[in-house]
């Protein structure tokens, strides 16, 4: 194996061509691993090799799978000397011990890499079918390293794994590529579109046509490797330690999901956009690049409007009873979505209330393979800079007519789009106005104004992949009252809540499940399901501790990359400019007070460095020696 030593992998590597002769070896793996498949597929594009490695059982126990396993692998494979868009960066696709078990939402998977947008550790996760089907090829994870000379795609089937020519697919959109590679009820396609090929720093990787590994630019890493797609087909199912017990836990979870109005009624009926009017009413909906916290036309882009005017039907990812996915249709186009974040980023953030234009912009992002949050927020940043005269452009808040062409320009790096393709931070910095980038560590913030949700601000500032609402969303406790409503303006004590949600999110991302279930289902249910599947006893405390371990390893990764306390911050606007009107009027983020408490609670020193004692406690001390 080239590059950094992969210490976690057992020394039983064998070439893919030998796979059929390895029945004994496979049996040995399965004998001690239930839930996990016990294998990692390692593809070196530069060398043209495909190898199967054994997954170390202890690593799986400590880091679970998904985001945790991906981070652990990345720690060994991609050091600080590696540029994110160089061949030495790795793309690590991971499933988790619950993936493919038919536990509610057990369809998901993650990709881990070093982000070209932020330079931090990155993982993005997605639903659909690809994760479940990849696991059924017999692997828990896929590592892709190096770079091919010409475009290739990887095909993994029960009989073989092979790299194939993708020259004819290069420059094709996501739907074109997905169809060309034969997406079907048995076969799943994961691919990039032109933005990934053109190294747009917030290019997404798309799977099953419309699902997205959206944030942080993993699509650009894949483009830099000349890898157009990964196609999977498989039937091998994970083993269970106690199937009867699993069925009982699953039944209890189904009761929780049914009893919760968010997961049983609101999401299915209105999609994630159900929160648009709620967040707006509280004065926490960032508007016109966070200049205001209420959008006077939010109703026009709300879940209710989407349902009334564009909804054709709702659908679901594999094994998901919630079915939040929207299939929608405008007068000109149809597609999936938009999600709440996309409606906000391409709508309220840009001062646009034209629902059809926003939906079509979202469809376009999906077809091309772009992260809608970073796309919308970067355009919003440019709109403000244009209005203030910092740049010379026709972009203005409310200019729905320019959305489509601006997105195309970003995807193909044309004109101003070439600059915007670098993300809002690089763009604004390049014009001497970094204060207009509404980002943390270079990642554009999602659809909640931290001035109206104090915990959310701390969450954004400390999120290891940059500003993110999926790293322990405080929407639950601060807005929806899940599990219990807490005062959204409270500062003291908020750090503990944020940390608990961050640790829980890290664990859930590693199982890998959809975090929407966590709106209704407490961690103890996941722990019991994990115990039933793997046979390894897990309490809810163990699960949260695993999340804490993963969070700390991500922190260590970022520290190794040169990040520090100075990066755990928010844009100046949110710290200094009070919300001008509405229910959050007069509030700024009280980040500094919360951050000190946060570090102490984490067991980190005043610079945000985990103490030796904390690392020892989490079993991470060996990594830093």
């Amino acid at each position, binding site marked *: 194996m080239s590059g950094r030593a992969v210490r976690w992998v057992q020394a039983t590597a064998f070439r893919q061509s030998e796979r059929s002769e390895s029945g004994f070896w496979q049996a040995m793996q399965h004998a001690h691993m239930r839930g996990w498949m016990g294998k990692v597929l390692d593809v070196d594009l530069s060398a043209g090799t495909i190898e199967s490695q054994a997954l170390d059982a202890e690593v799986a126990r400590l880091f679970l799978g998904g985001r945790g396993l991906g981070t652990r692998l990345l720690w060994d494979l991609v050091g600080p000397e590696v540029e994110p868009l160089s061949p030495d960066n790795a793309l690590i696709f991971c499933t988790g011990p619950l993936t493919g078990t038919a536990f509610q939402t057990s369809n998901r998977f993650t990709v881990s890499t070093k982000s070209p947008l932020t330079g931090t550790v990155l993982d993005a996760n997605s639903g659909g079918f690809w994760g479940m089907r990849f696991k059924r090829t017999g692997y828990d994870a896929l590592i892709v390293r190096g770079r091919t000379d010409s475009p290739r795609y990887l095909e993994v089937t029960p009989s073989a794994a092979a790299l194939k020519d993708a020259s004819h697919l290069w420059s094709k959109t996501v739907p074109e590529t997905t169809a060309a590679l034969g997406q079907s009820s048995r076969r799943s396609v994961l691919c990039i579109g032109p933005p990934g090929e053109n190294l747009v720093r917030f290019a997404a990787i798309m799977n099953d046509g419309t699902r997205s590994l959206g944030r942080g630019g993993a699509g650009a890493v894949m483009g830099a490797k000349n890898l157009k797609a990964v196609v999977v087909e498989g039937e091998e199912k994970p083993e269970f330690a106690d199937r009867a017990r699993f069925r*009982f836990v699953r039944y209890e979870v189904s009761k929780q999901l049914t009893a919760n109005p968010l997961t049983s009624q609101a999401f299915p009926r209105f999609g994630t956009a159900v929160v648009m009017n709620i967040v707006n009413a509280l004065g926490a909906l960032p508007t016109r690049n966070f200049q205001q916290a209420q959008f006077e036309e939010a109703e026009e882009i709300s879940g209710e409007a989407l349902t009334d005017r564009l909804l054709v039907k709702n659908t679901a990812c594999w094994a998901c009873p919630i079915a939040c996915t929207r299939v929608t249709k405008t007068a000109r186009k149809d597609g999936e979505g938009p999600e709440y974040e996309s409606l906000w980023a391409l709508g309220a953030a840009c001062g646009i209330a034209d629902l059809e234009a926003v939906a079509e912009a979202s469809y376009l992002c999906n077809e091309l393979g772009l992260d809608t949050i970073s796309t919308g927020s970067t355009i919003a940043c440019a709109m403000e800079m244009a209005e203030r005269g910092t740049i010379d452009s026709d972009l203005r808040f409310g200019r729905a007519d320019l959305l489509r062409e601006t997105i195309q320009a970003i995807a193909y790096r044309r004109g101003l789009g070439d600059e915007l393709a670098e993300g809002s931070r690089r763009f604004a910095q390049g014009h001497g106005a970094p204060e207009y980038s509404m980002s943390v560590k270079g990642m554009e913030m999602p659809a909640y104004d931290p001035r109206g949700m104090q915990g959310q601000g701390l969450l954004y500032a400390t999120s290891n992949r940059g500003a993110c609402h999926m790293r322990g969303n405080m929407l639950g406790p601060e807005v929806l009252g899940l*599990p219990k409503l807490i005062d959204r303006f409270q500062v003291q004590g908020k750090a*503990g809540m944020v940390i608990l949600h961050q640790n829980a999110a890290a664990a859930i991302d590693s199982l890998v499940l959809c975090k929407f279930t966590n709106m209704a289902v407490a961690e103890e249910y996941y722990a019991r399901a994990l115990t039933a599947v793997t046979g390894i006893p897990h309490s809810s405390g163990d699960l949260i501790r695993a999340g804490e371990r993963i969070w700390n390893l991500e922190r260590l990764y970022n520290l190794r990359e040169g990040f520090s306390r100075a990066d755990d911050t928010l844009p100046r606007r949110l710290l200094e400019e009070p919300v001008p009107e509405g229910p959050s009027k007069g509030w700024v983020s009280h980040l500094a007070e919360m951050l000190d408490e946060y570090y102490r609670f984490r067991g980190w020193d005043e610079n945000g460095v985990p103490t030796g004692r904390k690392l020892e406690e989490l079993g991470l001390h060996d990594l830093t020696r």
Partner: protein
Amino acid sequence: MIDERIFRQFQEIGRDLYVADLVSSHGGNMSVRLGDRLVIKRRGAMLGRLKEGDLVETGLEKPDSGIALASTELVVHRAIYVATPALAVVHAHPRTAIALSLSREEIVPIDNEGSYLLHRVPVVTAEFASGSAELVEKLPRVLQEYKIVMLRGHGCFSIGQTLEEAFQWVSCLEESCQIILAAKAINEPLVEYRKMSEEYRTW
């Protein structure tokens, strides 16, 4: 300095615990975790009538002068925070639950709400049932797996993200125990209405 919002939460939940007969005039206690510190009821203060000065802030692991004023159960609260993800702990004396704990190794609710929310509540025995090393050793371990545990003949400890959540488990447990008691008093065969109910004992 304890935030006024946090004091108000103590006042409201404390009052509710007393009014609901879940503690006697000076019984029970509760705490919240703030980073490496915790806020706990002062020893001797009345949960139903908390006033300024009735809350004590002290170190989670490092003792300071706050321990002179804090509740007797401080050591147990501390140990729970260290061992579990809890952000709030409520200790109460729910009467029916205490009565049932005297003869049972576990309390398995038979009502819908209790079955749904609690499934099963373990009962732990300790020779010295207040603030002892034995409790410090036993309770946190159980609370890694369960959100509420009964201490035989003494009361319950419950955990949550907020005081309100921890209070909910206490309130729910006592209601379930009253229903078990009422069903026993009626003394007629029970008609099982729950699918897979035999599994609750293994939760």
